[in-house]
């Protein structure tokens, strides 16, 4: 069982203010041995049946639904690499009714799912025309509830559409630099507490096109084991050397840093031009939070640069929603490059890069997406502006701060109840992303279907996005979820957990510890709730 406590412990230096605002407990409990054995057995059996079905298709006893070469081209080099798609063809296709479900409403706290049936075991789907209304949404990245269609809140957005239209029809460098783009960049810089910021139209592209502008050949990238695909893609595109350190493990990072500084570049042993450490604020598959004070201390000691991807943590953690730098009480100027996206907490689309003015000015002319990509659409920009002003309190209301607090409350409540029930949950106690481990492929599929029957929409993830034995369901909490919705979801989870035998945890929880440093009256109400 891995159980780590986050504190500033390495190397004697802590956050500059000296005040520890955050002491998170992270746990990654391991399931009993029989679970891993049965998971491998299950995959083995389905693989055997996969070979059997492939044989039937090759012989011709069964119709082949997938792409294959034309008869005239059978002697050519094969176009469809059959074995690479083995997993897709023989496992994913059987159960793919649990993914890509079409929805037909706003992805708020509740949404409508379109009903579909499959006559041939998920090779083709047919929409029946009916919808499943008011399904509770536990999968959308809607941390602060800004995915809303309230006409009053969206008044300014509608005005922008009338003023600017929808498309910008140019890049920022040519004719697409609108006044609201500059307004947004100044607001983002003020929000984060840095000198300057740059916004881009797409979050994934922010990582994959800006990292090549920052590092190149002769530089070293130290990237966490579980980094997101966009970071990995950007690192590979840059041409720099990439070394991986164990997830959130400061000893591993220090060892890799020392080796790199001592031995230099691979064959010539010249010193590295730049060493950049790439980490994320919250890792969305694990729910873990980065040990930022330790990393900042290491970076100062070994004179490396830090690139922090706050896609899931901006707006969602921290007492006022400013992200992991605020959570740990650190100065944002300690982090060299702050990156984040507007997709998750702001209900819009796009990403930003922030830091010192020289850095952002350099990136404006050297980054691929800043130079070539189309500028951000005006209503999307206005949505981010209104959401950010709401969180900062600049619009005169306290709605933003209420939402940040409600998200923190929902997170604590949901996590503690799930642990009490006996499920294995990964991640930090304060992260709104909650992976619930399911392990076996049969249970993963049955779980998703059972929850949809009870009108709760969940996202389940399996191999290859997770390790093969650790398939999970990932819950993303929202400030828009009310207590009644969470209670209903917990009730259903309890019943489905008993029905499918998902309660693998071997810890004993007698009662929830009272938390002194968060004073919320609602917490007292929780204790009076009857346990379900």
């Amino acid at each position, binding site marked *: 069982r891995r159980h780590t406590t986050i504190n500033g412990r390495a190397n004697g230096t802590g956050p500059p203010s000296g005040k520890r605002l955050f002491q998170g407990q992270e746990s990654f409990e391991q399931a009993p041995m029989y679970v891993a054995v*049965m998971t491998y*057995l*299950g*995959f083995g*059996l*389905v693989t055997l*049946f996969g070979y*059997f079905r492939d044989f039937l298709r090759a012989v011709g006893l069964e119709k082949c639904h997938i792409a294959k070469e034309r008869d005239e081209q059978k002697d050519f080099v094969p176009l469809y690499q059959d074995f690479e798609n083995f997993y897709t063809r023989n*496992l994913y296709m*059987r*159960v793919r009714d649990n993914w890509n479900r079409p929805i037909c409403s706003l992805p708020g706290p509740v949404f409508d799912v379109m009903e579909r049936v499959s006559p041939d*075991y998920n090779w083709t789907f047919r929409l029946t025309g009916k919808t499943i209304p008011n399904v509770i949404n536990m999968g959308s990245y809607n941390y602060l509830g800004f995915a809303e269609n309230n006409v009053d809140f969206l008044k300014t957005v509608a005005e922008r559409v009338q003023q600017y239209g929808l498309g910008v029809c140019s890049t920022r460098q040519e004719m697409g630099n609108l006044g609201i783009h500059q307004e947004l960049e100044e607001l983002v810089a003020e929000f984060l507490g840095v000198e300057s910021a740059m916004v881009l139209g797409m979050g994934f592209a922010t990582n994959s096109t800006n990292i090549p502008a920052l590092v190149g050949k002769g530089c070293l990238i130290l990237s966490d084991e579980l980094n997101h695909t966009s970071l990995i893609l950007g690192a590979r595109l840059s041409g720099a050397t990439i070394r991986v350190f164990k997830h959130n493990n400061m000893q591993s990072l220090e060892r890799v840093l020392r080796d790199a500084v001592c031995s230099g570049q691979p064959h010539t042993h010249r010193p590295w031009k730049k060493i950049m450490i790439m980490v994320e604020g919250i890792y969305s598959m694990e729910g873990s939070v980065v040990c930022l004070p330790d990393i900042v201390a290491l970076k100062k000691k070994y004179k490396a640069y830090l690139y922090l991807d706050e896609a899931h943590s901006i707006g969602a953690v921290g007492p006022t929603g400013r992200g992991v730098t605020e959570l740990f009480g650190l100065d944002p100027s300690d982090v060299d490059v702050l990156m984040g996206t507007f997709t998750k907490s702001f209900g819009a689309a796009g990403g930003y890069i922030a830091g010192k003015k020289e850095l952002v000015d350099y990136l404006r002319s050297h980054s691929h997406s800043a130079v070539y990509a189309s500028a951000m659409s005006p209503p999307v920009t206005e949505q981010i502006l209104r959401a950010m002003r709401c969180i900062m309190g600049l619009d005169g209301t306290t709605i933003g701060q209420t939402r940040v607090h409600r998200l923190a409350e929902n997170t604590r409540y949901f996590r503690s109840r799930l642990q009490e029930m006996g499920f294995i949950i990964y991640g930090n106690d304060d992260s709104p992303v909650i992976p619930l481990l399911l392990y*076996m*492929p*049969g*249970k993963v*599929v*049955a779980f998703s279907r059972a929850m949809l029957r009870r009108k709760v929409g969940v996202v389940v993830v399996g191999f290859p996005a997770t390790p093969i034995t650790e398939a999970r369901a990932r819950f993303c909490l929202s400030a828009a979820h009310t207590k009644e919705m969470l209670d209903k979801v917990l009730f259903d989870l309890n*019943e489905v957990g*008993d*029905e*499918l*035998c998902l309660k693998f945890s071997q810890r004993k929880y007698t009662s929830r510890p009272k938390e002194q440093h968060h004073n919320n009256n609602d917490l007292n109400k929780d204790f009076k709730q009857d346990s379900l």
Partner: protein
Amino acid sequence: MDFKNVKEYLGWLYYQYLLITSIYVLEPWEQSIFNSVLFSILAMVVYTSYMVVPVHVHLALEVFSGICGEQPESTMALMN
């Protein structure tokens, strides 16, 4: 979870077996193939153990009692 009768409980146990072995994701005819293969293997194991185990246990007991039986007799013979 409360089961109204034994049939429902057995149905739930079968469901657990489908989930744990991941046979749940297969089509019904594939499940039938797997169930019949597994059942025939188990039947063969039960039959073999029924035929073989009592005979071997009996033989083993004979061998051990033979060893224990012979020892005191040989030492007595030596002393005499």
